[in-house]
């Protein structure tokens, strides 16, 4: 996994843990969404909205209804970020950490 994709996965994992209020939750690309405790339709809405807000992107219904695992979500997000310039999107949060 390249560095940028890893950064996206880290951000997405943090959002999922935060929205599900489950900080110890381990999130990898292979984590199956159906297998995550508490990820029901309401949580799905919250997570997608939080990711859209964080990365300034917008998923289409066909996209956010079809994610089977976190990797697919990251794939879709990466594609959108590449279209708008993901470095610009990721920079503010990274800057806050330093």
């Amino acid at each position, binding site marked *: 996994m390249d560095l940028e994709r890893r950064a996206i996965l880290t951000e997405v994992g943090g959002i999922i843990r935060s929205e599900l209020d489950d900080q110890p939750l381990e999130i990898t690309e292979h984590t199956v969404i*159906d*297998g995550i*405790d*508490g*990820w*029901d*339709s*309401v949580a*799905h*809405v919250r997570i*997608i*909205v939080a990711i859209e807000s964080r990365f300034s992107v917008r998923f289409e*219904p*066909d996209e*956010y*209804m*079809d994610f089977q695992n976190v990797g697919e979500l990251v794939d879709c997000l990466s594609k959108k970020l590449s279209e708008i310039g993901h470095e610009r999107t990721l920079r503010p949060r990274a800057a806050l950490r330093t």
Partner: protein
Amino acid sequence: MAEPVSRHALQPPFLHRAGLAWAAHLPEEAGWPSDGSDDKRRSQLRLWENDTRLGPRHAIHDAIENEGAGRYSHWNGGLIFSTGDGSDPNTNGRRYAVSLGAPTTRVVGLGSCHLHDALIELEDKALVHWAWRTPALAHTPREAAQLLGFHLGELDIPAPLHSVTVADTALAGSDPADFRPGPARIKQADIAFLEFGSTVDIAYGPFWLLRAPLRTRFIDKFAALGAASRQTAYRWYNQGLLKRNEAVRAECAARMLDMIPRLGVDRALARDVVCNARGAEQDMASVVETMRGIRDTLQAKATCVLSSQNAFMPDGRPLSWPGNFFKVIETACGEIGLPLLHTKSLVAEQGAAFAIKKDLVHFTPQMITLLGTEILAMGNRALRALEPDVVASHGGSGARTPAPAES
């Protein structure tokens, strides 16, 4: 729709009951069927204040007393009503009259609360006669087919299972004969409305469990035991059943069995449901077959389909399960030749603030009103399409046509 020509004047004095509620003697000739405990929406009586029709009708009596604003109830042969502005009908100088405005369009509907609410409103406006109300909500084609078969007396379901397969809790324990109104009320309506929101069912032996009573009668009771129980029950339902994760289902079911003695429900049924319920997604061919069967059974002049969704994003985008649901329902309707209205499209047009409540699931009252208008227009278009002359003049346009105005 033409309003009836004959109005029957109500003669004062009107008896003050309580709050904003008044009682009136109905004229002898107005011996029309009234609402009662056996059918709370039977009456077709209209109440007029000068030339303004009051309503909503079928109002509960507390609402008439406390909220007034024209609410009224034709109950057990009597009339309890409120004036339009809360004034005393004995002294406000207005004339009060009743009429019987039977709507001419007979409809049936199988679907969610959105469809039911829209049909209730259309009936309250006397725009349709809702010939048969299902006591339970249906979310999938197979749930609807099961309700239809049971209420027609063509499908036997053991009485202990009625509460989770065909009826809501209000009807549980009633005489099964009450659930079966007979084909005369169910079949051959002018318009049949079918609303579906998923193609994933919850199989239970040869039957399908209805989502709403499963939630209220079981899952909510597990949830009331505490956070851990709630999480287990929701995992069982959402991931184990609806998403068909067998490992999660089995794990949660094992935990839930230990909780059942604390639930205060029918333990044998609860154990059986927890152990034997399974998620089951219907494939395209089966969806088509089921929908075609429902259409053929209902024998309505026109059959119209609505799609619904599990929830919405805050900006109004739909969320449905399974993810391909809208494509499946579109393809099925196309194959059978049924008109389809995506309620998500109405939400997109009107905006989330107009259409969706804060729970991101239910429609607002104004959206229900719009939905009623749209489905009636869709139904009327489908009826007109059956008339050869009208088809020629209208050209089969898919454009929306205005619904008949409330008279």
